């Protein structure tokens, strides 16, 4: 059996409020054991996983406890508290695997589906993984039960075709990166209504964002901390600057900036950003319409029509550097968020984050500089693009004379074919091949018309039996299901079948596919193992065959046609498999007939 086990420090509680008895929890596949630290305590646990039916756990959160609640069938439960959520999660997964394992093998204890064949060693993680997959996918579980526990396929064979599933899970985690938050003003001051204090909460995440968006701040940080001031002072100053900005009082901001040098850096517009923007603009493709983008330039100070109250104020030029423009902030923020996480450093240490970001920026600069001859490149592109293809004048295409035959010939022929294809039965109307003069024809017509005039309408206009036959024929025709197919795009034939039939059909499809997959992959037969496998599969397939016939007969006549259409490809596939098997067996027996030593 598997020898995986988990050992963690935990507290055993009888209820959520209970402080809990500290101790050590040891879990193996079969059972879990809890030994309290205090040897005199009587709160020991030794519970088999067989009795555990479910588990519950608390969500992650800084103020919550990391609890795991193992519930038993008869209502008892064991609450365990862990030191950290990570510990709890490990135990939780182990417990889940154990519970699932015991749930599955409840019946077939002798046949251990997890037991590896042919010396294949499976790790606990593998086993748990498989069990988790089986739990998640009902269909998979059903197939597994049918074939592996039914003895038709072995465990290894079953999973051999599903390698992708097994691998996928492991790699699921690292593929997605956590992106930067899209909130812009993440530095929200909490103002205490009573006193005049304003509190800023800066988490490492926010700090990273600030450094990414405002390179001047980052540069100032690298310069000042820890030489000129401590980190706390730095952030206090920064928060003050933010606060001043939020009050939108530009004059006050200018006043404060004049006094404090560092504050001035925060309050002024970011020169580094301006340089960056200028550089980027120079790299833009010359065919791009710059007029439309002119507003993004730092040199041009319009607000893209965004409504701001103080746009009407005409302030002195000395206050200009202290104004913040919403559109510029927004653009910069958007650019940073879309760029994603450029650095992958532990967020705890602010300084390292700042340095990492600075390094990235430097690398970028170096790259750009190395793409030297940008000037030449630019002029090349301009000259190339100036001549655009669709602005060229039209070139007269070469003309050929058309000669078209009379279309009547074609449609004449088509009509004959169309009618042949329709398979007209004639329906009792026969055409006499006769050669008639117009005189005769018109004459007879005239006679008939006068006949009606004389006679009038007959009574009854039509024979009642005939009318009834017609009506019932029409009704039957209309109500036949073939007219309802394909009308509603959301409806499929499967939905209109009775539920049992539908389930059966789908089940048979998947199981036949699984069996055939293994069947065909075993050919050509080279080893005895493959031979026995093929025989096994063939027996299973021949069992399915009559079941399909049964399904066809069990539906009412209305649906019989559709069902047989659905079943037909399955039968064809089975027939092909059987034919191949028989041919192979014949070949082998023919070959064996030649050999005298009875070698298989």
């Amino acid at each position, binding site marked *: 059996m598997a020898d995986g086990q988990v050992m963690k420090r935990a507290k055993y509680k009888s209820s959520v409020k209970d402080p809990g008895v500290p101790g050590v929890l040891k879990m193996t596949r079969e059972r879990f054991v809890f030994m309290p630290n205090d040897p005199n305590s009587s709160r020991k646990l030794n519970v088999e996983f067989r009795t555990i039916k479910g588990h519950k756990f608390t969500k992650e959160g800084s103020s919550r406890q990391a609890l795991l609640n193992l519930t038993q069938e008869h209502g008892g439960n064991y609450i365990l508290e862990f030191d950290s959520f990570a510990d709890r999660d490990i135990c939780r997964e182990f417990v889940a695997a154990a519970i699932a394992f015991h749930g599955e093998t409840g019946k077939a204890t002798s046949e251990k589906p997890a037991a590896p064949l042919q010396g294949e060693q499976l790790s606990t993680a593998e086993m748990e993984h498989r069990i988790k997959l089986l739990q998640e996918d009902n269909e998979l579980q059903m197939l597994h039960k049918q074939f592996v526990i039914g003895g038709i396929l072995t465990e290894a064979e079953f999973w051999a075709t599903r390698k992708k599933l097994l691998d996928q899970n492991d790699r699921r985690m690292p593929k997605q990166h956590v992106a930067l938050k899209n909130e812009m003003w993440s530095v929200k001051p909490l103002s205490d209504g009573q006193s005049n204090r304003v509190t800023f909460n800066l988490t490492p995440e926010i700090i990273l964002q600030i450094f990414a968006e405002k390179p001047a701040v980052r540069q100032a940080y690298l310069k000042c901390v820890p030489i000129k001031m401590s980190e706390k002072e730095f952030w206090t100053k920064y928060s003050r600057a933010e606060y001043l900005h939020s009050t939108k009082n530009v004059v006050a901001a200018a006043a404060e900036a004049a006094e404090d040098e560092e504050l001035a850096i925060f309050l002024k517009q970011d020169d580094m950003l301006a340089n960056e923007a200028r550089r980027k603009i120079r790299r833009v493709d010359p065919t791009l319409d710059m007029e439309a983008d002119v507003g993004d330039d730092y040199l041009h100070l319009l607000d893209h029509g965004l409504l701001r109250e103080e746009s009407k104020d005409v302030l002195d030029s000395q206050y200009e550097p202290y104004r913040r423009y919403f559109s510029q902030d927004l653009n910069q923020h958007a650019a940073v968020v879309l760029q994603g996480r450029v650095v992958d450093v532990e967020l705890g240490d602010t300084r390292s984050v700042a340095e990492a970001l600075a390094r990235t920026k430097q690398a970028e600069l170096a790259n750009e500089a190395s793409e030297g001859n940008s000037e030449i490149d630019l002029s090349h592109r301009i000259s190339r693009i100036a001549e655009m293809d669709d602005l060229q004048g039209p070139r007269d295409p070469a003309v*050929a*004379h*058309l*000669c*078209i*035959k009379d*279309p*009547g*010939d*074609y*449609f*004449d*022929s*088509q*009509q004959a074919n*169309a*009618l042949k*294809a*329709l398979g*007209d039965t*004639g*329906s*009792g*109307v*026969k*055409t*006499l*091949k*006769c*050669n*008639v*003069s*117009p005189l*005769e*024809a*018109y004459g*007879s*017509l*005239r006679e*008939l*018309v*006068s006949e*009606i*005039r004389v*006679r009038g*309408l*007959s009574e009854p*206009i*039509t*024979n009642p039996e*005939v*009318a009834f036959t*017609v*009506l019932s*024929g*029409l009704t039957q*025709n*209309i*109500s036949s299901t073939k*007219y309802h197919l394909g009308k509603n795009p959301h409806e499929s034939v499967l939905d209109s079948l009775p539920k049992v039939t539908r389930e059966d059909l789908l089940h048979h499809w998947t199981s036949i596919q699984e069996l055939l997959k293994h069947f065909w992959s075993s050919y050509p037969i080279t080893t005895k193992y493959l031979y026995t496998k093929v025989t096994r599969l063939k027996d299973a397939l021949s069992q399915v065959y009559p079941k399909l016939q049964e399904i066809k007969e069990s539906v009412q006549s209305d649906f019989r046609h559709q069902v047989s259409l659905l079943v037909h490809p399955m039968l064809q596939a089975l027939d092909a498999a059987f034919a191949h098997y028989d041919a192979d067996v014949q070949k082998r027996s023919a070959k064996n007939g030649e050999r005298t030593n009875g070698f298989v």
Partner: protein
Amino acid sequence: MYLHQVPTNFFDIFPDDVSLLMVLIDTNPFFWNSINTSLSFSKFISNVLAFLNSILLLNQLNQVVVIATGYNSCDYIFDSSALQNHNQKGESLLQKLEEFVDKDESLCRDDSVDGPGFSLLSGSLSMALCYIQKVFRSGPLHPRPRILCLHGSPDGPGQYVAIMNAIFSAQRSMVPIDSCIIGAQHSAFLQQASYITSGIYLKPQLLDGLFQYLTTVFATDLHSRSFLQLPKPVGVDFRAACFCHKNTIDMGYICSVCLSIFCKHHKKCSTCGSVFGQAQTQDSSTPDRKRKTSVDN
């Protein structure tokens, strides 16, 4: 002057079941002469008369117009809205029919005709559509028109283009074309007409009970058709026929200039004279097969 309005919203104006029914009856004498069934022309006309009466009974605002499709000409032979004396509808129709037959005979220039001949379906369709257009322009309130073709003669291939034009015009004006085939063979043109205009195509199995077919299927007005199930043909044969052998084919070669269809590779298009490129093997890229080099012919 009116602007032609595509009547998209007269359904809202006239949501109930008033209908204007244009009946096109096939009066090709060679066709009626050549069939040997229980349905003689007189029986046919009496069934149709009874059917017209029942249409007029369904709703007092219903209108019926009958157009005769002859061998050489077509004409209106009955208009229910133009009648003064309501008791003499049948009489007046038959009278007009006789006059029409005479006129048609006088226009006939052939000495003898083999088989059933072709009737002028395109002419009568066009006349019906013109009448319908007149009705559309008569004011905001008008009944919903539809066309019923009682046709038996085989399709005349020379009329194909005209019939297709009429069909597309009917499709655009949203006038369904119903077809009731009383002849021996299916009519590909009318199948397509009913398919494109969302009308009903029916070839009755028992021609004795023609009246029953007419009243069950073709008397339904357009409003009711939205909730009634009516018979539909199993399929419309849209398959093409190749130009060289006149066989119906599913896959073939097409000239990229005139779209004529061939079942085998040809060096030159027989319809427009374009020269095709070299035939490549099956494995190479397919567009080469249909490439042509333009040549002055």
